[in-house]
């Protein structure tokens, strides 16, 4: 049987890369005495797969991994045991049992939501009207640099939602962007690319390096069809134990 584990990654742990996060979980599973399934062969390893790798420097409130288990207890017990064996910065928020026919975590990913705070002072413009004009374009073309060539990509169909609110920092208004974008293996785009393109559209200088403080809020799967998508968080397809 398979469980899906939802976790948060924050604080100093945003500097831990994806491979080291995988290693962290392999050891965490052992410390928490989870009855995990192993592959066959001379060097057996845990049956574990992560949904969507998170870049170094990003926080997340909605990371997922699937884990093969020989035996499970209850959602509450497993969350408690995992958190007791974890460290500040990795917090397990849900464990659900997946139905037999559930697709693997990575292939299931359709979209992700992000919140983006700005580290430095921003120009005081009306971002809301800029965004609505930005999204009204026929196409939103970006030039994607690949190893060999440049490719023009239309990111409009990959942006499912983009919005702005404001926060007060040092007595000044600063935009806080939120968005839902494609995170599937075919169409994954980064929130920084969306905002860079928005700033260019609004004739603003591109934000400085390290300006974006990005939090992935959740990761979604499509339980509808490709014509009529219905996006739900990855743990919505499993059942509380």
């Amino acid at each position, binding site marked *: 049987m398979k469980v899906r584990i939802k976790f948060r990654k924050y604080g100093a742990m945003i500097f831990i890369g994806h491979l080291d996060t995988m290693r962290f979980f392999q050891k*965490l599973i052992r410390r928490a005495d989870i009855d995990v399934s192993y592959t066959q062969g001379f060097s057996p390893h845990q049956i574990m797969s992560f949904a969507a790798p998170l870049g170094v420097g990003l926080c997340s409130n909605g990371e997922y991994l699937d884990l093969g288990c020989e035996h499970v207890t209850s959602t509450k017990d497993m969350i408690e045991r995992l958190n007791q064996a974890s460290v500040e910065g990795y917090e397990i928020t849900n464990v659900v049992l997946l139905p037999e026919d559930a697709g693997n975590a990575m292939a299931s990913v359709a979209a992700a939501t992000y919140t983006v705070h700005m580290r430095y002072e921003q120009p005081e413009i009306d971002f809301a009207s800029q965004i609505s004009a930005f999204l009204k374009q026929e196409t939103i073309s970006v030039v994607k640099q690949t190893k060999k060539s440049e490719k023009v990509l239309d990111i409009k169909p990959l942006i499912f939602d983009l919005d702005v609110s404001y926060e007060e920092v040092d007595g000044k208004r600063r935009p806080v962007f939120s968005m839902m974008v494609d995170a599937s293996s075919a169409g994954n785009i980064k929130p920084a690319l969306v905002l860079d393109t928005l700033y260019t559209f609004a004739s603003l200088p591109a934000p400085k390096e390290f300006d974006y*403080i990005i939090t992935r809020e959740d990761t979604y799967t499509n339980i509808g069809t490709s014509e009529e998508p219905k996006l739900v968080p990855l743990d919505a397809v499993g059942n509380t134990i």
Partner: protein
Amino acid sequence: MILCSKSLIIWDMRKLALNDEILLSIENPARYIGGEVNAVMKDKNDVSVRFAMCFPDVYEIGMSHLGIQILYHMFNSFEDTWCERVYSPWPDLDKILREKQIPLFALESQDPIRQFDFLGITIQYEMCYTNILQVLDLSKIPLIHNERTWDDPIVIGGGPCTYNPEPIADFFDLFYIGEGETIYRRLLDLYKEAKASGMSRADFLYEAGKLPGMYCPMYYEATYHEDGTIASFFPTREGLPDKIVKEIEMNVSDTYYPDKPVVPFVKVTQDRVVLEIQRGCIRGCRFCQAGQLYRPVRERDVEMLKKYAVEMLHNTGHEEISLSSLSSSDYQKLPELIDFLIEECNRRRINISLPSLRIDAFSLDVMSKVQDVRKSSLTFAPEAGSQRMRDVINKGLTEEVILKGAEEAFKGGWTKVKLYFMLGLPTETDEDRRGIAELSNLVAKTFYDTVPKPERKGKVSVTASTSFFIPKPFTPFQWARMGTSEEFISYAKTVKEAVMAQLNQKVIKYNWHEADVSVLEGVFARGDRKVSKVILQAYKKGCIFDAWSEYYHHDVWLSCFEECGVPIDFYTTRERAIDEVFPWDFIDCGVSRAFLEREWLRATKEQVVTPNCRQACSGCGAARFGGGVCFEEREDGASEGTN
């Protein structure tokens, strides 16, 4: 600190010393953030002693060191003490810390090192000496001991290199000679009293220098003969000992051991549970410093080891466990321990790694159970190519035993063999050097003789590696002349040519170690106080991470020796008289100078081997510690420390 969204709560978290921009612009930021599993957090207001424990190399190396884990555990088990870790920042961060004037910090609290009461530096190899200066400098602690005040931590060194602390004596307030488990508690108590009574720093160091195993270099002085050798070495304040006797933990089965080692996020060199099964070695190889320093052999109780293995695996989640000792095959309850581990580890899907095992039927059987024979290689350390040479270095291993081991290994399915040798040993000739190639050839031949053609799975491969012999203090070879860089290269060439001339040369690969850096290591190993100014000069010219070939600048070092008027050959190629006073003679490691002298003559004149400690007692002097192998029933029937 990164704020994550979600109603803009800034969690009550540790504040990092480095901001996000810096952490995102350097290699491997995880080296600097702390917060690992089992890292110990305390409230600094609840403790009276803050101890920063440093391994002066990069995090991945330092975190792999068992000694620090043991001491970290010990210090943090003291309620009044908080021990934290610090490592050498990699050159990318080093540059940023200097540019931005950010003081070096400890991983746990992220507080500047200079705020600590102690900075303890473990010194495991000579090539980290400039990194010691890097750590002091980045912490804004004066590099030379007499420029420090109570505003600076007490800088204390420990580890194998401190058995000749003289080349780095200027940089330390104290050295702890010996094993850390015994005296630190008394040192911390003395420190608390000193602080409470308003004692001066100089007086505290003086009082500390009276504790067993403590060496306070500022209160010792050397005078020299005209030829540069030492005339006398003595304490300058009354009440300090002439001789510093090493500290040793005789009760190794009931002492501090880390049941919850820190688990790094990044993959470090030693990414596994390490079980130290014994201290010391019965063998007495004449080039080996560790084999003399850690005498007598003390085995840990097998039940203790079983208990710790289970706890440590559970508390870390590591997927591998390794046994640690100088010669694991000599641990008497090894079969019992390994049977236990195999059963326990199979159940938990844990790998077992078994370094430093003698290759014989028992170890091959064990290894075939715990590793993939096709993928792993077998390691032999004959250390020298000819039997005569192996007798000189007291490596009892014979050609017959090596080939027998190889034969059994090939029958068991192994095809990769590694052979380790040294070049430039005392009395060595070209014949001995060519012996390295010949022995390698015989190992390859054994494969073809043992495994019939249809049963050969893949090609046999023999890798012979040579390092250059560096005479070390407290070994019978401490009197030996060390080769020059040019000599070393020519020796390697002799081996290379001999390998090419072998029948099976196609399957033999020959590697040799860097010669220049070996010479420098040779200077530091047997150096005196005069060498310290060269180290300081090289550091000021930008030398750090000398153990890393990409950062080692031999030309800079050569110019520093010249500018300081310190001749390299005084420390390396010079022939030493049998009665010369050595810089390290004021330290007593248990093994007597008379024993080492006897061994030196047995090696070079008589060219005979000396029996190991279980065969017969050779009266090295370590029996005075009152335990260990010296008091076991021996093969010769004698026991109870008959030396």
